[in-house]
């Protein structure tokens, strides 16, 4: 089954956990929760705005984790935290990972901690029982890709494009070849993220990998005031798009389709 991991910026609204429940109800296989940082270097405008809004609301990691703990018994899908190194290292990775685990977060994605800098965080995550997900990019060379795949836990995050998060008109041609390269060196699921903006992107990406992470396109809706109910519909549409990939096409066809120029 192809996977769908929608993203939500923690603390974006007072009742932000309602969106989590909606995501789950719409068929999310797991949810990525952004812990907002003042300087989100890898994020495009949408996620920057979402982080800013959450921080201006006065949200903190403590508050987000407390909110999560409060809905913990209603959430059955895995939760991944996505944030930046400075928040992870603020009180040390051990403390940070333990707090995640205590709040029911089972995975962690830190885009500015590449594999070379991941030693301490990796052990801390493992000790706390948290999966440290590593990212691979189209420019990652083969040997390094193998190392990333080997050290990643939970899944491998395939960054589809050279660029930041953000809505795009089409899925990058680099997405499918990267997913294929990663799948060749690991049995972990490979999820494709960055720029999955429309259901057809999700279908195409899901064909190439094991599923998709969708962030900016959803957060754009949240920023524009869409309700959890409306987001439920959005995620349901993505769910259907992802499932379509599962049903229709053998993997090597899919590969051919998304890697071509779709102008």
């Amino acid at each position: 089954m192809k996977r769908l991991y929608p993203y939500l910026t923690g603390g974006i609204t007072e009742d932000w956990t309602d969106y989590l429940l909606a995501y789950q109800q719409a068929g999310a296989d797991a949810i990525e929760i952004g812990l907002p940082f003042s300087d989100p270097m890898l994020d495009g405008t949408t996620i920057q705005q979402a982080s800013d809004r959450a921080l201006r609301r006065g949200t903190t990691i403590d508050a987000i984790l407390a909110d999560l703990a409060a809905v913990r018994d209603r959430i059955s899908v895995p939760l991944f935290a996505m944030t930046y190194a400075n928040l992870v290292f603020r009180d040390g990775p051990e403390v940070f990972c333990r707090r995640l685990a205590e709040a029911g977060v089972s995975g962690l994605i830190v885009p500015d901690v590449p594999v070379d800098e991941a030693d301490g965080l990796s052990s801390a995550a493992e000790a706390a029982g948290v999966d440290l997900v590593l990212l691979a990019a189209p420019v990652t060379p083969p040997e390094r890709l193998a190392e990333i795949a080997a050290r990643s836990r939970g899944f491998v995050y395939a960054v589809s494009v050279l660029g930041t998060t953000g809505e795009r008109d089409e899925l990058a041609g680099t997405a499918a070849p990267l997913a294929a390269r990663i799948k060749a060196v690991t049995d972990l699921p490979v999820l494709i993220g960055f720029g999955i903006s429309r259901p057809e992107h999700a279908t195409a990406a899901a064909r190439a990998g094991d599923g998709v992470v969708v962030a900016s396109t959803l957060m754009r809706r949240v920023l524009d005031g869409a309700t959890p109910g409306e987001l439920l519909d959005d995620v349901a549409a993505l769910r259907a798009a992802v499932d379509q990939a599962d049903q229709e096409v053998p993997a090597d066809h899919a590969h051919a389709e998304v890697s071509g120029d779709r102008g």
Partner: protein
Amino acid sequence: GRFGDFGGRYVPESLVPACAALETAFREAWADATFHERLAELRSVYAGRPTALTPAATLSADLGITLMLKREDLAHTGSHKINNVLGQALLAQRMGKTRLIAETGAGQHGVATATAAALFGMRATIYMGERDMARQRLNVFRMELLGAEVIPVTAGSRTLKDATNEAMRGWVAAVEEAHFCLGSAAGPHPYPWLVRQFQRVIGEEARAQAAIQPDVVVACVGGGSNAAGTFAGFADTRARLVGVEAAGGAAMTHGRPGVVHGYRSMLLQDEQGQILEAESISAGLDYPGIGPEHAHLGAIGRAEYVTVTDDEAVAALRHLARAEGIICALESAHAVAWVLRAAGTPELPAGSTVLLTLSGRGDKDMATLAGVTE
């Protein structure tokens, strides 16, 4: 790029190969006599090096010390920034890059980068906070005149911190054709090291020029490239090394360890780990971080870091102008202010010989200063 506990390469995976390739290229270039020859040639026939070492006769007499000023204000484009960009542009050319991306605060590094791009026939894209663009309109105009594209950054505080984020984002998106021409001794490995190597010409020249070896070497520190370059020339001497921070941007004095813009160092941050905005009258010191080598030099006690207020810096700029006929940059005025304050105290005893790097000229700050004065 690694200095004890500090430095590192905390960047998105998309940038890791580019950083690695840059490191390799730099190591090769640095071992290549031809590269050094070309760089030396550019410094000499283009950038105006060696810059003068000026004995500050009046101040020396008034303060009871021997004060020498290393005159980066005389370098082409008006500051030490040119040293770094010429090196990086030469390196980028060697790597086959056709475009330079840079962040800028007050615009000095942006102007320097635009200059190098023009000289090397490359495209230049300069990210600058919208607020800084408003404060430094003439530097924006200079960059555009040099053919650079200046991109306004509207995120966050709309200053250097945000411009740096945006430049790195821009680099992520253009990493194959573009070289990120980082302006300070900060950022991911190999930048802090590479920038310091390109700036060490300041310290090495000064050391060779000084008739008496200094007891104290002082420079202002924002990200810290002029200080890193100055200190590098005196690292193996017994000279005290003093870095002067802006009180409102004193990452070393008031910060704690953390990671931003690809490196681990001392950072101004809140209890939650959110990066704070710096508040300095000097745009070049208006930055919440400090180069990792400084964090290390401070941690091991090889260098000292002190702070100076906006008011002290403005007064020092005026004092230097009247005493020596040199209008230095507000950044550099921080170093002058510390000398004015410390001279004759146990911090800087009478009779000391002091080498001070004037990182740049003050023309860019006249509007700011006129505002303060009026």
